[in-house]
Structures are given as C-alpha cells and as structure tokens.
C-alpha cells in the first residue's frame, strides 16, 4: 500500500525575518489522500507552492516516487504531473471558462492550432461533473466567486495529474457543492492519483483524507491516522495547547428569535428593513428585517443571489425595485460611500479583488474605510496606529508589524484584515459575505465572539456564509435563499443542517 510517494525532507523557507517553514519533513504515500492543516500562517500554502515550483526553498529537498526532484518553475512541476488549485484563485478575467481551464495546456492540432471543439466538450464534461452552473463560453469575469473557485478545481482536473494539490478549494462552497467535488476527487483516487488537501473545515478533512499532517509555526508537528485520531487531538496539535471547547453556539440571551422579545429590547424600528428588493435576474422580491443586536444568517447554494443582495444593499448595484430602511428611515444609497455614511458596512466576498490594497501597508488598509467615512483630512499616525493595532490584536492577525503590505500575509490573515477594516467603522448594520473564508478554527471563534460582542452593543448583522455549521452556531435567525428568492426562515437555535438544506435545495432537484 505505501509505495514511495511524495517526500518533503527538511524543507525551510524564510521571507525576510519571517520564518515560514522551519525544516519540515514528512511523507505522503502514493495514492493516499493526505491533508495538511494548521493555523493561519502555519506555512501550508508556502509548502504547497514549493511543491508547485513557485517558491524556491532555502534548503531541503523533495522526492517523488523515490526520486529526488527539483522544480524551478510551475511548468516543470506540471510536467511531473503535479496539478494545483491555488488559494488565491488566479483566473484570466478576459478569457472564457474553457480558455481558463486549458490555459497553458490547450488541446492543439498541428502548429499549435487550437482544437476549440475538443476543449469545449471536455469543459462541458467537467462543469457537469462538478455541477457548476456556467457554460463553457461564459467570460470568466461574469462568473461569481464560488463558481470561479469550482472552475479553478476544474482546471486542475482537466489533466491527467499524478498529484492533485488543493489549497482551500471549498471556502465559498456549501456542502452540496463540496459533495460533487469530493465525488470527482474520489474517482481520481481510484485511478491512483495522490491528493494533498488543505482546509480549515475539519469535517471535510475527515471525509476526504486518510492521513492528516499538522503544521504549526512552520514546524512539522505530526502525521495522524484519520481512523485513530479524534478531531480534538488535531486541533490540539494545531494550536499547541488545549483547544477552545467545541465551538459552542454563541448567542446572547437578549436576542433570540422572538419578535415580541425583540420589540422589548429595541422598542424602535428594526435596524435594517428590506422590502420587495429586486435586481433581476440575480434576485427577486426579497423582504426581511434585522433588529439591532440580532445576527441574521443568510444561507443558500452557490449562485442563489446572496452576494448580489449584499452588494445592492451596500450601494454597489442599483436595484430594480424595493425599499431599504435603516433605523426606520428610508435610504437611497447610490455608492458604497453613501451606504457607509448611512451606517452600513460590507465585508466583501473576494478579498483580493474587493478588499485589499496590495500597495498600501496594513495600517493604511485597516483604517481606510473609517477615515473615508469620517472625512479625515490629515493623516494622524498615532491615532491610526492605535486603531489598526486594536484590530490586529482582537483578530489575532499574524504579522511582523503594521508596515508590511497584505501580500506578505497568509490567506487567512488577509481575510482578517478585510473583516477588521470594516469592524473598525463600528457600523449600525454589518453585512458580511463569507467573513471567515479561509480563517482557522481558533480565529473563527474569535471573529464570532467579536461579531457577537458588537451585536450585543446594538449592531445589526446580516451574514452570508456557505459554512452551514458557522451559520448554525452564530445566527439568531436563518434566511434561506434559493434561485434568487427567499424560501424560508428558521430560528437559529433549533435549526438543523437537514432543515436548512431542505429549504435550500427543494424543487431544484438537488442540483443548481
């Protein structure tokens, strides 16, 4: 069974003063499905990028099938059958889905003539397998974030790879989509493909992988057998101390789903009231309200229109119809600035595109929305430093200092920056789109607590998440979307995964 597979031997890598990997050694048996887990910034992506030939290690070696290999470019790694899905979701916005999937390895006739028909057919096949609701000719810039993530997976699956490396491929996916993905990966495994999987969702790790390697602070902690290791042990290995107790349902006693009770705690009107909001074809006739102190979760399958609703509320898209009121006053926002001034904040779904300034330091990134909202004229270093530092501390952002740019942070820490820069504005209504995407278990717990604390102080919160356990753990009330319409509402306390999923998939026949 354990034929010589992939071996990392004493791999080390430093970025300036930051030691990302400190001599990591472990082995993955050929044909194995192996997970690599660890806190944000533990060095997982760095390790994977070394395998993919993107980063050159400072020292250490790789071997594959007993043979020492050295990849100095992604091209070489691909040539050795290493297919990778990157955490950053790198796409070509100017090309079609088909062209994205085959970029660099097109099916060609003589002289490099493109065989569009063959590529299109293969793309259709992959999209069907993964249940991605887009056509092969769709331009990539029109594909929603979650679908784009699946297209990235399709990219890696399009070739006969011997090692499939997946760096957090499921962060915007719900269980339904993850099922399709794992089905495809399972078939590949049967064909003898080795899988290396990174995720912060431990249940997924347990579903897919036989063995789990834990990294902590760039160090190898151990490789564990799925069958014999309870997940608490994994978490303990990751954080290096007793794990936080099984992420408990955080909810304050004041705000539960009971309209009468709500009216009592906030005799005024709801903080956010949405009536008949439509923006065809993304969503239609959506009405709901969020009370101060309440956390409302919005769940739905990929493409059900959740992101569009949040962006419309935040003034980034113009609705066809409907009214929005904040604190009982109708608002007509035409830009994010209007929305911010009306007391709204949006933590966007795509941190790379919509959230971060890679040319600005962390401090500037963290204070920008606050400064824009307050109409700051002169930059006051000390005050800003304090605001930024507070966010870094309360979100446990792992960074050497505040003057680095976001590209020096790991994916999960980048996500915390995006959340932090909007939390700093202390809005009346906080809109969150996949707020804990790629964030590790411990930090997720911290973010939940933070949101809960702000809610208890009177903030209303509307959270879109594809991570159903997260929604169940945090939300006072759950709204379920399907195909652009609100299909139901469940109290957060009593809801079960099954009940939510039933609403989210009913009538659609289980597929999107």
């Amino acid at each position: 069974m354990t034929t010589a597979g992939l071996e990392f031997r004493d791999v080390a890598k430093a970025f300036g003063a930051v030691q990302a990997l400190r001599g990591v050694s472990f082995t993955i048996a050929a044909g194995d499905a192996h997970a690599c887990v660890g806190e944000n910034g533990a060095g997982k992506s760095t390790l994977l990028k070394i395998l993919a030939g993107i980063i050159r290690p400072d020292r250490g070696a790789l071997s594959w099938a007993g043979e020492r290999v050295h990849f100095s470019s992604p091209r070489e790694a691909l040539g050795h059958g290493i297919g990778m899905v990157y955490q950053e979701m790198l796409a070509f916005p100017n090309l079609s889905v088909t062209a994205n999937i085959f970029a660099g390895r097109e099916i060609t006739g003589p002289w490099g003539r493109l065989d569009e028909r063959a590529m299109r057919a293969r793309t259709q096949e992959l999209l069907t397998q993964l249940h991605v609701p887009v056509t092969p000719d769709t331009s990539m810039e029109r594909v929603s974030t979650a679908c784009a993530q699946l297209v990235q997976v399709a990219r890696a699956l399009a070739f006969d790879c011997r090692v499939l490396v997946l760096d957090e491929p499921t962060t915007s996916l719900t269980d339904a989509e993850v099922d399709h993905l794992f089905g495809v990966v399972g078939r590949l495994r049967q064909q003898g493909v080795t899988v290396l999987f990174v995720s912060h969702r431990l249940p997924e790790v347990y579903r897919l992988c036989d063995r789990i390697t834990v990294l902590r602070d760039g160090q190898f902690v151990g490789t564990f057998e799925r069958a014999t290791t309870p997940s608490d042990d994994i978490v303990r290995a990751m954080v290096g101390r007793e794990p936080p107790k099984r992420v408990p349902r955080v909810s304050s006693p004041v705000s539960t789903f009971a309209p009468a009770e709500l009216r009592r705690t906030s005799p005024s009107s709801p903080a956010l009231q949405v009536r008949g909001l439509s923006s065809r074809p993304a969503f239609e006739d959506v009405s709901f309200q969020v009370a101060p102190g309440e956390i409302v979760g919005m769940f739905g399958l990929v493409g059900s229109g959740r992101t569009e609703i949040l962006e419309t509320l935040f003034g980034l898209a113009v609705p066809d119809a409907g009214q929005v009121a904040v604190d009982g006053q109708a608002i007509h926002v035409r830009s994010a600035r209007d929305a911010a001034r009306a007391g709204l904040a949006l933590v966007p779904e795509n941190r790379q595109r919509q959230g971060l300034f890679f040319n600005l330091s962390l401090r500037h990134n963290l204070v920008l929305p606050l400064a824009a909202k307050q109409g700051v004229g002169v930059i006051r270093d000390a005050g800003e430093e304090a605001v930024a530092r507070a966010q870094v501390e309360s979100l446990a952002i792992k960074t050497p200092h505040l003057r680095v740019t976001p590209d020096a942070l790991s994916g999960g820490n980048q996500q915390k920056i995006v959340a932090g820069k909007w939390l700093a504005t202390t809005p009346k209504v906080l809109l969150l789109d996949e707020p804990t995407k790629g964030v590790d278990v411990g930090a997720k717990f911290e973010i939940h607590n933070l949101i809960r604390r702000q809610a208890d102080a009177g903030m209303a919160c509307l959270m879109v998440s594809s991570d159903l356990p997260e929604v169940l753990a945090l939300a006072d009330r759950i709204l379920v979307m399907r195909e652009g319409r609100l299909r139901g509402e469940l109290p957060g306390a009593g809801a079960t995964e099954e009940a939510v999923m039933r609403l989210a998939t009913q009538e659609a026949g289980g597929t999107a």
Partner: protein
Amino acid sequence: MKKVWQVREVSTLMILVLEVAFFTWYLWPSDGGHPFLNVGNALLILKYSSIYGIAAIGAAIVIITGGIDLSSGAVIGLTSVVTGYFFVQAEWSLTASAVMGLMVGLSAGLASSWLIVGMRLPPFIATLGVMGIWRGAGYIITEARFYDLSAKLPRNWTVAGVSIDWVPPLVMVTLAAIFQVLMKRFQWGRAIFAVGGNETAALFSGLRVGLVKTTAYVTAGLLAAISGVVLAVVQGQGKADLANGYELDIIASAVVGGTSLTGGRGSVAGAVLGALIFGVLRNALPQIPGATFYDRVIVGLAVIVIVVMDQVMVKRAS
C-alpha cells in the same frame, strides 16, 4: 455563437464606414468627379495607412500582453536607413537589403524583450530607451543625410502586373489576416491573451511568460521593420527622421481599434481598422477649404467621438 454585431471588430468597421459616408456627403462635389470617393483616393488612403497599420498589428500584440512599444517609429526610420544603405551604398539587391532592414526590427524586439524580461524594466522605459538608441543610430549612419532609393528603383514599377502602390495595402491586409488567425485560433495567440489577462496566473499555469513576451516584442519589432521596408521601397527613401513620433499614432490606432492598454483585450484586425480611421481623417481634412488650423482640433474630437460611439455600440450589443 456570437452574433455578427457582437464581434468587437465589427463595431470598429462600422465606425470606419460611417466616417467614409460622412466625408462622402460632406465633400460631395457640385460638379464632376467626387474628390474623396474614387479608386485613386482609396488607394492613396490605403497606401499611407499601411505604414501605420502594419506596425499597429505589432503594437496591438504587445499591448495585449500588457506592455507597450514606444520604439516603433524609430524602428521604421532606422529600417528605411539600413535598407537604403545596403541598396544604395553597398549596392546589394533590394531583397537582401530589405532583409538587412528587417534585422533592425528583430534587434529592437530582442533588445526590448531582454530589458523587459531579463532586466525587469518597465516596458515604457525599456522601449523608450530602445527608441532613443535606434533613432540615434539612424543619424549616426546617415550623418543626417539620406539614401535615395527611388533613383535606383524602376519608375512606374509593377509587381505581377499591378502597380507597386497596391503592394503596401496588400501586405497590410495579408499580415492582418495571418495575425488575426494566429491570435484567435492558435496557442501562441491564446498565450498572449493569457499573459496580458493575468501574468501571475499565466506563470502558475506553466506558461513560459518570458518567452511569450519575447515573441510579442520581436513580432512587433519585425512588423515595424516591415513598415519601414515598405516606406523605403514605396516612397524611395532612407532617412533617419522618417516616422518621427509615429509611435503615438500607431498605439492610438491599436487603441481606437479596441485594444485595451491594461492588457488582455484587443484585436489586430481592429488595429488595422484603427489605422484606416486615422488615414481617412488625414486624407479628407485637407480637402476642406479654410480649415487649415482646425485639423488638430478635428482629429482630437474625432478620436474622442469614435471611441465614445464604439463604447455605445459595444454596450448595445451586449
């Protein structure tokens, strides 16, 4: 499949047609033959536009990779000088001289791409430097004089029965067709678009980004050199200051033809149509009496109006 009017190039073509229709109406003669709408004038427009158009194909390719090439005017000038030098001074055959001329473009492309890919200079600076050096080389070779090729070339020269004046437009159209197919139907073109769309993603996808860029700059250099040979042969002169400042017109042709300076989007056929749009303006404006000092203003307005119209059409279509 895309509808015809959704094809990007069609909207540029429609603008060209509208422009020709406008001048046909505006310059309608009170008597006799039409001064604008006649075969001779059409040939004239084509002949002069081809100097810009051939180079604009290369400019579009470079811009699609996300770069820019400021050296095209200088390459055209130096190519005419080098071709002239070998044909007139060294008394080589025209073909051999033209091949030496093409070396100018090849060397410019290699130099630019070495600076951009190897030394990691921004394309603007690398090609600005190459522009200075190649333009300067022309002055050093000629000492500010020129080579008169026309004296050695046959008068009323015909190639395969057609006047030499038809050659530049034919070369332009042929090259546009070839590169349109290469860009849309071949792996090389796909790689150009991919590199311009997202360079990091291209690298991670295993594309040889450096090589792709090198081929783009070399192609642009060679195409500019073909413009230079056409200029030297059809116009009969090799002179260092020829095509001075044309790089901006060439880039503008590509951009008017739908190529985006942020990279990843564009069309070589559109670039040629863009060159023709400017060519028609250059031809028709002098025919309007009393507007002497208004030319620049009209060209400036036209550029803006054309691109706005184009935007509107593209939006309509989608």
